[in-house]
């Protein structure tokens, strides 16, 4: 339907483009929408037919949304989780990038830490949570620590890969113009590794969110994870599901934010690849 409206809006300017767009809409979005509708309908009818009334189903979740998103408890939880994720990601970005850049360009540093990074990366965060809670207490600090632990290795490994594969031509130019080692690392290797850093950020953001929610579950500190836990334990399944939707929304929103930043701040990226 929106494909049609695009066609009508600019039939003279770009009829072919509009036609292609509506074709793409039909080809890619229609199957997606149909799949979603089928799943929701199946969920709705199965729950109606076989489950008790308090079990969440799409129709009641939708009805719960307006109530939940003005609920101060929910807003506070959302704010707490988002803030923790933002803080954790900030720390992760700075340290992960620096460690990754140096690791990618210094063979000895790479040798020194490579196996430890891979090892830590393979440890599930749920395993280290009890340890962290002993070190940092049942507090927001433990949540931050978990977020950093969950996210930082994705950044380090991606940035290190990017730094390792910086085109030799750039490095040659830097040497020819007598660039210092520091300026080569952060003025050249870092921007040249940007595509890898972005891939790392995407991974890290997802893991950071999971880390935050897992920590809230485990530690029972305020946040979206705890909100979901509390509501599902008190038979408020619909409310809990609004929290789940919110988490999914974070994921999609962050992806869109990263894409927008890429286009806005790095117009050369993608187009410069040819």
């Amino acid at each position, binding site marked *: 339907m929106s494909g049609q409206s695009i066609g009508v809006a600019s039939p003279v300017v770009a009829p072919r483009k509009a036609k292609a767009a509506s074709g793409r809409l039909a080809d890619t979005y229609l199957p997606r929408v149909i799949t979603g509708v089928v799943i929701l309908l199946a969920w709705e009818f199965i729950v109606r037919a076989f489950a008790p009334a308090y079990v969440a189903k799409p129709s009641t979740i939708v009805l719960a949304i307006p109530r939940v998103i003005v609920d101060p408890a929910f807003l506070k939880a959302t704010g707490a989780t988002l803030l923790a994720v933002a803080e954790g990601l900030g720390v992760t970005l700075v340290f992960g990038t620096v460690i990754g850049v140096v690791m990618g360009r210094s063979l000895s540093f790479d040798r020194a830490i490579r196996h430890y990074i891979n090892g830590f990366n393979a440890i599930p965060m749920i395993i280290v949570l009890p340890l962290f809670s002993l070190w940092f207490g049942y507090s927001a600090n433990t949540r931050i620590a978990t977020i950093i632990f969950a996210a930082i290795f994705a950044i380090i490994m991606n940035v290190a890969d990017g730094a390792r594969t910086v085109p030799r031509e*750039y490095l*040659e130019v830097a040497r*020819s*113009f007598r660039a210092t080692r520091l*300026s080569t690392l952060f003025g050249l290797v870092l921007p040249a590794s940007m595509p890898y850093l972005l891939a790392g950020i995407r991974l890290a953001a997802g893991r950071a969110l999971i880390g935050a929610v897992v920590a809230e579950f485990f530690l029972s500190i305020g946040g979206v994870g705890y909100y979901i836990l509390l509501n599902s334990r008190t038979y408020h399944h619909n409310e809990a599901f609004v929290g789940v939707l919110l988490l999914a929304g974070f994921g999609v929103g962050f992806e869109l934010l990263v894409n927008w930043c890429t286009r806005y701040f790095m117009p*050369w990226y993608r*187009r*410069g690849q040819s």
Partner: protein
Amino acid sequence: MTQQQTAATAARTPLAATGADPRIRVRGLGKHYGALEVFRNIDFDVGAREIVAIVGPSGCGKTTLLRCIDGLLPHDAGEIMVGNERVTEPIAGVAMVFQHFGLFPWKTVTENVAYGLRMAGAPKAEIERKVPEFIKLVGLAGFEKAYPYQMSGGMQQRCGLARALAIEPNVLLMDEPFAAVDAQTREILQFELIRIWEERPTAMIFVTHSIEEAVLLGHRVIVLKGRPSSIHEIIEIDLPNPRTRETLRLPRFAELRERVWNTLMREAREAEFILER
């Protein structure tokens, strides 16, 4: 190519007649890549206001030679002097223009041109004054905010040239700078380079595989040959300066081109049938 022949030609190699105080002095230069000897016994000078073109069959080590002179690669015999400085790593006052342009895709024209100055530690005011000046000099005025991906190969190399010129080097090293642009653009850029050099003459080494380009630009042409390669001949190009499009039509130009061609092609034909060992 036999050892004897190589030694004989090396002995015949004339030293440059560049006056008392050459800007670049290369003496007995030799270079190995592991077991492979790239070149040996390279001797030549470049005057402070002279363009020396280096031609040779592909794989003869022209580019390696240039990288040694820039200090990007270590040499393992002989010495390179630029002014009074012995080259072991890149030194100040020497700038290179690369075949691959070497522009940073995340920087605009202005930022790319400023790169050399920034690395040289120039004050901000100086950078802000000089960068537009050199952008204008290479004919890129109006494209200050363009990124490399938005520009043609010719424009990108103009930018690469401006970056090198901006540090006001007294030695310019040109590594097949126009090899990656199309024929028409190449011709335009050759005359642009001559114009710019006339405005700001420096010692210049111009590596190319185009004989015509070598004869058109060079005040002398060095022909590298053999495996390992050494200087086969240094040919004085006694064409009137500055070179223009008229130069291309002079009988003397054709003569000199033929002479370099004969020297090189004899060698190239031999080289084509040498088996890699």
